[in-house]
């Protein structure tokens, strides 16, 4: 477990360093994500400790948003000043992106050869 967390942190640290060194607009953790993903592709069979550590971090993913969300208390003035564009963008463009993407993908995704093909892909994980 410690080794798995260490590996995840090493990927993140590498990402932060690369992002800083080359002055990239891409945040460090995203570079870390890409690095770990390619590592897994090469390794093919990820060690169970790593997948367990990742799953444990992600089970409580939504909890991790709370501290940043409480930051709303520092943004009250800006929210009051720009409430209409913010509310419109949040509601209209979020739903627009969801419905248009869903329409596009339901047209383009290849029909599964057997009805449960998509489910078995998930079960295999």
């Amino acid at each position: 477990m410690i080794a798995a967390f260490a590996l995840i942190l090493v990927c993140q640290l590498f990402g932060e360093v690369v992002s800083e060194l080359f002055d990239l607009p891409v945040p460090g953790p995203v570079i870390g994500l890409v690095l770990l993903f390619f590592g897994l592709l090469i390794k093919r069979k990820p060690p169970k400790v790593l997948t367990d550590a990742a799953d444990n971090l992600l089970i409580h993913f939504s909890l991790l948003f709370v501290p940043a969300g409480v930051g709303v208390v520092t943004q009250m003035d800006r929210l009051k000043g720009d409430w209409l564009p913010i509310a419109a963008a949040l509601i209209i463009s979020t739903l627009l992106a969801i419905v248009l993407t869903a329409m596009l993908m339901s047209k383009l995704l290849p029909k599964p050869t057997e009805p449960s093909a998509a489910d078995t892909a998930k079960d295999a994980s």
Partner: protein
Amino acid sequence: METDITQLWVYLSAKPLTGLTITLVAYAVGFWLYQKSDRNPLCNPVVIAIALIAMLLKVTGTPYATYFEGAQFVHFLLGPATVALAVPLFRQTETLKRAMPVIIFGVLFGSLIASASTVLLAWGLGASPETLASLAPKSVTTPVAMGIAENIGGVPALTAVCVIATGIVGATLGPMVMNIARIKDWRARGFAMGVGSHGIGTARAFQVNETAGAFSGLAMGLNTLATALTIPFLWHWIFG
């Protein structure tokens, strides 16, 4: 008596332990209410936790910075959790290989619609430049969105709030809008939730249907990459 309590609070609030404990307790309360409500999406545990903590800070007059001293330990985990997204993404490798061009096109399409419609709409309604830059990356997961906002001249704290609100809007209203549009393919529905409302939408998709959840996780991971790789360059190119 009241001064005793006040003094006790002054002492306690200066300890990181307090902010950390409040965060976990508020989330536990939110999650309990969510389950009590039969997992009603309107009873989102993140919203409940944020509302409870914000009220507590207001009532006690505690500055956000003091609270964050403790809450930063939870906040810190967003970085490693973002890296950990590589694992669910890796599990979708087979799906990715089978429909690679369609999936990449879908993610780029969704990412562009989400950010372009946001910026155009907010600009048309007179938002300030900082607000525009803070809103642009609102459909990707918080740490990445905050990083992008910082890069293009937004306010990271405002971005965090907008990202979470986006997740909640998508998770609560997204399925209804897709029902109205009569989209029945679970893969397409999950995919759209992941592109439009990141982790909060993905958490919701997993609760409704396994396939939808898997596609949502895939789309969220790829959208994080697509948005982080395109928005900053597009932004600097368009606005200089």
